[in-house]
């Protein structure tokens, strides 16, 4: 007896040491968390999850540069049949939005002085700035017809010339400016941005949000103010059309909806989980401790990820946190057993449960570590986060719970009935019927899964309301805005190299414009042509205009000389340093590191008015064979990324199942399959159900299946581990765990955010199946090498 007592006190000492050590460790984590949250380094860039070598640095820079312009901008367009009505509505709108004190400031229009200054900047280079159509015409038109054109222009009433006649006898200069202004269809009119379309006079009103990009309060101040102002505009001029768009509106909508869902789904599931815990344990204390263990696990995971990777991607955190969710069952398992054997001292009980718990931890870790094998930074972050998170929760449960559990939870009718129901649950014997049933099941699932379709398209994750998306599209069409999602990146060894390559690309794009696939493009070389282009255009205009001036002189009896222009070419550096570059400066990416050594330079060529999605591949092919030109389709690359992650994780999931089965075999030998089978059945069944409901397979389903692996195997282990008299307690842990997971994740199937919904739906099916099949595979007798 004294030997046993010695052993017990030695165990007590070890456990005490472990508890204090863990507390000290948690102290360190807490300090780190405190500093982390003061300036959280949370990455939001999904593309950062791509393998490094797949994403050239200039693509990321270009994306950021383009996105920065958009994140704060709100565009409202007001359309009325007549200009007076549009103005009245716009004035009412502006009054209302200012009165609403929304976090929106107006973006003032550039004054007419800025235009005059820009023209003055460009004037010395007028002779080398031509549109493609002008270049073509000057090169091919017979000299006499050009003289005729110049004379016709002189005969026109009024002239509204931008330069002296001898500096621009053919009126090329206003056309060049018109082409530059053609990048948007809006024109200043009475201090507003205006355009006419479809019989309506439109006014574009630009505002910038001043508040944070994501309001976490669930309010939508911007949308509310816009709604009020829209109503005011309608009141001022009945029948006007009001369109509102901009990234802040989408972000605010998503945040407000997420908040609303947390309010309903979130609190609903919390209430359900609390109620279950209370019914089972007649106390909320166990539930609180489980929440504590999860909290510690999450904090540890966050600190570890931040420490290893420098920052934590938001996506990692969301999914990592979900995957850690399965670790909660450790605490549940402990308390259920504590309730089942109230007389056992807590430490002794924990010692007895430890092998099973450790195996549950090991299998989950194996499953999640598999995620981190491929060279995807995102998956590695996720793997590290979830593994550390589970381990942290495990350590908290094992080290602390025996000390702070406040005694065994009371038994109640609820927990007794659940525990007792286990014995009545059917069980698969090694009968022929069972084999046939399994064969039919696998076959049926196989057939259903064959009909499962895969869809990784990013656009299906679009969750903004249709009205907002439509308004956004209409605004883009009205203003002729370039798409921020598809563009070309042009690289070169020098700035001039970049401009020359842009010009090669543009000559191909002009053919696409002529074919109607594209309304136009925005390119730096439209504002600053390459040196070679400047030299050849200057030579062309000199030859032609000398002839035209001489021809006109002969007809009207004058003796004019062509004006002189700057002898030096316009350089990109000069242009960038001037305010004249304001309009197009964002197209210049600048110096980027070159593979190997040195630096290269890069720019963006943007597209306006792409006819439809079907035109994109043809436009993309314009880059084929052009050195340094690269097509970037953000929608497609993110979709492709999702697809690759889905594919990769699918394979890893299979590998995870294999690894888990091996680990189980190490402890349970030939009975290992019993712990694994429920999860395997649930995985197959879930896939089949998804196919049956016509749900597409995508990354978020696969992620949910990874979580299912972690959870389902735990249940298998619990039931296999605690045979005989304790089986009821293990079953109680499984029932409570499954019901809790079902409430917290399965309810996500009600979410209107597509990613969350497919995640939730998968778990809704999976958990349900694993819950009800796990007891079917229990052994006839209690297992197991009895632990110490």
């Amino acid at each position, binding site marked *: 007896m004294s030997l046993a007592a010695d052993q017990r006190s030695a165990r007590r000492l070890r456990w005490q040491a472990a508890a204090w050590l863990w507390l000290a460790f948690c102290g360190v984590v807490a300090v780190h968390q405190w500093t982390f949250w003061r300036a959280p380094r949370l990455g939001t860039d999904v593309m950062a999850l791509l393998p490094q070598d797949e994403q050239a640095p200039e693509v990321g820079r270009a994306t950021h540069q383009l996105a920065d*312009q958009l994140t704060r*901008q709100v*565009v409202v367009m007001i359309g009325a049949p007549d200009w*007076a009505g549009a*103005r009245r509505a716009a004035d009412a709108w502006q009054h209302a939005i200012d009165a609403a004190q929304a976090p929106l400031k107006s973006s003032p229009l550039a004054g*007419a002085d*800025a*235009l005059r200054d820009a023209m003055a900047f460009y004037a010395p280079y007028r002779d080398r700035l031509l*549109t493609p*159509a*002008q270049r073509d*015409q000057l090169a091919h038109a017979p000299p006499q*017809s*050009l003289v*005729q*054109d110049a*004379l*016709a*222009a*002189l*005969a*026109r*009433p*009024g*002239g*509204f*010339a*931008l330069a*002296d*006649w*001898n500096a621009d006898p*053919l009126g090329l200069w206003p*056309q060049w*400016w*018109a*082409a*530059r*202004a*053609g*990048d*948007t269809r*809006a*024109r*200043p*009119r*009475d201090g507003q*941005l205006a*355009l*006419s379309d479809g019989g309506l006079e439109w006014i*574009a009103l*630009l505002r910038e949000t001043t508040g944070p990009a994501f309001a976490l309060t669930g309010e939508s101040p911007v949308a509310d103010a816009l709604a009020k102002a829209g109503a005011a505009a309608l009141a001022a001029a009945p029948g006007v059309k009001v369109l509102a768009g901009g990234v802040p509106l989408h972000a605010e909508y998503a945040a407000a909806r997420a908040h609303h869902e947390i309010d309903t789904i979130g609190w609903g599931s919390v209430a359900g989980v609390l109620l279950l815990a209370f019914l089972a344990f007649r106390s909320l204390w166990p539930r609180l401790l489980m929440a504590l263990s999860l909290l510690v696990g999450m904090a540890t995971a966050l600190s570890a990820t931040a420490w290893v990777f420098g920052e934590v991607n938001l996506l990692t955190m969301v999914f990592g946190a979900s995957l850690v969710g399965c670790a909660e069952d450790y605490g549940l398992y402990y308390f259920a057993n504590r309730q089942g054997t109230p007389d056992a001292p807590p430490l002794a009980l924990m010692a007895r449960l430890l092998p099973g718990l450790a195996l549950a931890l090991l299998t989950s870790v194996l499953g999640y570590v598999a995620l981190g094998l491929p060279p995807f930074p995102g998956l590695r972050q996720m793997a590290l986060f979830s593994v550390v998170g589970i381990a942290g929760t495990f350590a908290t449960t094992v080290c602390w719970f025996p000390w702070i559990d406040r005694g065994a939870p009371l038994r109640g009718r609820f927990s007794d009935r659940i525990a007792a129901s286990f014995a009545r649950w059917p069980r698969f014997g090694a009968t022929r019927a069972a084999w046939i049933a399994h064969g039919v099941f696998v076959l049926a699932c196989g057939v259903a899964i064959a009909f499962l379709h895969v869809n990784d398209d990013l656009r299906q994750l679009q969750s903004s309301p249709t009205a907002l998306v439509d308004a956004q599209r209409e605004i883009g069409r009205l*203003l002729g805005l370039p798409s921020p999602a598809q563009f070309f990146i042009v690289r070169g060894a020098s700035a001039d190299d970049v401009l020359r390559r842009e010009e090669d690309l543009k000559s191909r794009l002009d053919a696409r414009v002529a074919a109607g696939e594209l309304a136009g493009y925005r390119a730096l070389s439209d504002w600053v042509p390459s040196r070679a282009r400047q030299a050849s255009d200057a030579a062309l205009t000199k030859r032609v205009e000398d002839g035209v001036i001489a021809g006109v002189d002969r*007809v*009207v009896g*004058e003796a*004019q000389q062509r004006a002189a222009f700057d002898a030096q070419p316009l350089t990109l550096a000069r242009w960038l340093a001037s305010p004249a570059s*304001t*309009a*197009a400066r*964002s197209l210049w990416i600048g110096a980027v590191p070159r593979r190997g050594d040195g630096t290269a330079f890069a720019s963006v060529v943007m597209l306006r008015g792409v006819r439809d999605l079907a035109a994109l591949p043809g436009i993309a092919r314009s880059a084929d064979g052009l050195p340094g030109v690269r097509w970037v389709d953000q929608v497609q690359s993110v979709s492709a990324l999702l697809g690759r992650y889905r594919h990769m994780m699918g394979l890893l999931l299979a590998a995870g199942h294999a690894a888990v089965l091996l680990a189980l075999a190490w402890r349970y030998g030939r009975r290992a399959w019993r712990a694994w089978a429920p999860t395997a059945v649930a995985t197959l069944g879930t896939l089949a159900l998804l196919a049956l409901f016509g749900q597409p397979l995508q990354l978020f389903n696969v992620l949910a299946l990874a979580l299912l692996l972690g959870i389902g195997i735990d249940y298998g282990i619990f039931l296999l581990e605690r045979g005989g008299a304790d089986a009821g307690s293990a079953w109680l842990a499984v029932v409570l765990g499954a019901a809790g997971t079902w409430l917290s994740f399965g309810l996500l199937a009600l979410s209107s955010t597509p990613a969350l919904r497919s995640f939730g739906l998968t778990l809704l099916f999976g958990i349900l199946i694993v819950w009800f099949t796990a007891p079917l595979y229990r052994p006839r007798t209690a297992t197991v090498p009895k632990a110490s």
Partner: protein
Amino acid sequence: MTFLRAFALVALASFAVASPAAPDADFARLIHDRLKVSPVLKGEFEQTKTLKGFRNPLVSKGEFLVARGQGVWWHTQQPFESTLVVTKTRLFTRNADGSAGNLMDAQAEPGLQQVNELVFSLLSADLDVLADRFAIVAQPVGAAGWTLVLTPRDPNLAKFLVRATLAGERDVQTVRIDEARGDVTQIRFAHQVPSAALGADEAARFR
């Protein structure tokens, strides 16, 4: 969307038009009493353009045709042949040989429509449209005559156009356009013949 604002800047300010305002009552009555507007008006013109850099004014003569709601046909005969057609949506020239000399209008520019409307309404004295864009001062001249001085309301337009001056009696007789660069266009109309509708060959001129 900085570029949007910036493009507002580079957008051709000359093409902008100004705020609407009801013509004041005196002006309305005066013009209503004196200017007779017919659906179609044709006649002859003599235009004198004084351009910076030119030693002599450019004098041209020809015939014109104004059809309300359709456009203006401006046929220069001396010192060279050239035809200008302005409609609501297009502005094109035709050379002596009949070929289209459309160098000025190769681009589909939304501002083009606005400049078209401006030229169109000046030549056809379309006062409803003009009153939207210009502050108008009207003065009676003698028993039957009048002068209208039009100043752009839009500061962007004022950067290019100082004023336009119309004078006449039953018809518009002279138009004078003063540009900010110092160029001046003076047009004198003569032998004006009103009619109720376009002939078939005349209608073809606007196509």
